[in-house]
């Protein structure tokens, strides 16, 4: 009886794993199968036109804009915040409050960020539906990611590094930017790359703050659509699954490249000798 039950459970485990892998392979396979015919030079680097399938260069540029702007703001703030939490703060109520806030930000769904961005950045700060409004919203979304990964990276820097540096008569600040941050750099970098992935994959918050204009953005104050929003809109409005899948291929490739480079960098970290 026990033997039978064990075999049954074992079968169930194999079956579940098979199912998971099969479903995920089918999804990625479907996107590639459906969209690969559209992928060519003109599609990726061409200007958008509402006739036919149109180029996606404006959406790629918009996506890059959102990545660059939100990371320019979120990276220094996130790193310095993590430095404060790990290197400066005395454990106590203040740190608990900051940690709680950071964790809570991670749990808020992106549509709520979108609502907030639509009122605060778009209306109250009068930025209008624009790339900058979306980027500022995304800044808040990725801030907890950067803080957490930087904190983890700082934790891996051995105490002896700090002690050695301080014993040489350096100040805390000098130790920080000459010793601690360089040692933690691979971890911090892979955190930044992960947040890029998060920004690329975001849709609901961008949809409500950047709008849907399908044209090359004139500046960061114009409304535009990112790759994800484009993929959503062509599916919803014209049912053009082929085009949505082709955009999907571009998205998957970007995510793949980002993940591989994050893995590569953190592998380097493990090889570092400390």
């Amino acid at each position, binding site marked *: 009886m*026990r033997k039978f039950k*064990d075999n049954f*459970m*074992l079968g*169930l*485990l194999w*079956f*579940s*794993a098979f*199912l*998971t*892998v099969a479903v*995920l392979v089918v*999804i*990625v396979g*479907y*996107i590639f199968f459906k969209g690969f015919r559209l992928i060519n030079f003109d599609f990726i680097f061409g200007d958008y036109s509402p006739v036919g399938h149109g180029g996606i260069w404006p959406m790629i540029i918009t996506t890059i804009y959102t990545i660059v702007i939100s990371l320019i703001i979120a990276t*220094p*703030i996130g790193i*310095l*915040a993590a430095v*404060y939490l790990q290197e*400066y*703060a005395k454990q106590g109520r203040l740190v608990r*409050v*900051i940690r709680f*806030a950071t964790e809570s*930000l991670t*749990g*808020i*769904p*992106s*549509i*709520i*960020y*979108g*609502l*907030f961005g639509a*009122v*605060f950045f778009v209306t109250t700060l009068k930025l209008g539906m624009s790339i900058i409004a979306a980027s500022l919203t995304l800044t*808040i979304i990725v*801030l*907890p990611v950067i803080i957490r990964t930087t904190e983890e990276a700082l934790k891996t820097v051995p105490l002896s590094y700090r002690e050695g540096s301080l014993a040489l008569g350096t*100040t805390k*600040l000098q130790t920080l930017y000459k010793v601690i941050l360089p040692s933690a750099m691979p971890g911090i970098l892979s955190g930044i790359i992960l947040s890029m*992935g*998060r920004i690329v*994959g975001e849709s*609901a918050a961008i*949809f*409500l703050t950047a709008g849907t204009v399908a044209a090359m953005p004139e500046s960061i104050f114009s409304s535009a659509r990112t790759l994800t929003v484009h*993929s*959503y809109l062509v*599916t919803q409005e014209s049912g053009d699954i082929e085009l*949505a*899948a082709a955009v*999907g291929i571009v*998205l*998957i490739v970007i995510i793949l490249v980002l*993940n591989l480079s994050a893995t590569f960098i953190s592998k380097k970290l493990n090889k570092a000798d400390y």
Partner: protein
Amino acid sequence: MPSPSNENQIVDMKKSNKLKYFFESASEKLFLICAMLSVISLLLIIGFVFYKGSHPFVAEGYSFIDFIFGMEWVPSEDKFGILPMIVASIFSTIGALVIGVPIGLFTAIFLAEIAPKRVAKIISPAVQLLAGIPSVLYGVFGLAIIVPMLQNNFGLAKGQSLLAVIIVLAIMMLPTIVTVAETAIRAVPKTYREGSLALGASPIGTIFKVVVPAAKSGIMAAIVLGLGRAIGETMAVILVAGNSLILPTSLTDSVRPLTTNIALEMGYAFGTHQEMLFATGIVLFSFILILNFVLAKISSKGGK
């Protein structure tokens, strides 16, 4: 007697030390400000959403009870009831959990305990990668494959339905649950397994009676994360939900969960209508808080 140039040097050094100390204390304050920004952001978000969302009930005389239990949502006629959406959100989330959690958990157990090392080394990173794929693409896949499949198999007028939402959300939460749960199971010390096996338990019995209970808090975290992804998902859900404003009575009904209501109407809403969308956001917010709280309670009880 120090020479004048030496004296100058000492003064210079004192000056530069002063500057150094100033930078030391200024930088600590700057770091603190950066750290406080996440607190400020959270307060701003909660403040804005709650202020906007509570305005109709506090200042314009709308009844909150009618809002929560109202069956009709017709902004043009000043009717704002979100019960169908609340029910749709709850049903789709629970449905996705019922399908996604066992499959995800079993897959994680398989990868951590049973799979040959070489197989796990290929599958685990692949699944991890899939957690990062934009959720919109799951919606595109759902609309292209799952919706027509349901339509044909159940003879529906249109396949966009509660069931389609449940399936898409279940698939979407799989990578998250598998990745986090696998890490938790791998973290269980080897001695636990050895002890159990030494007592004569079977390998499978050891997994389910010793390893999984020991990894309970990590598994709970996996479920909470998957849940958060499911209840907050918007764009993928819009594509497969059908978005009808009816109280769902069967799995094949077209539904409109809370998130999609916000995304669909925020673009053109203004005045009270817009504020009611923020109120919808408050309800969504509260759901996430309650669910996290309940799950935290369950896992802390299990730990004892």
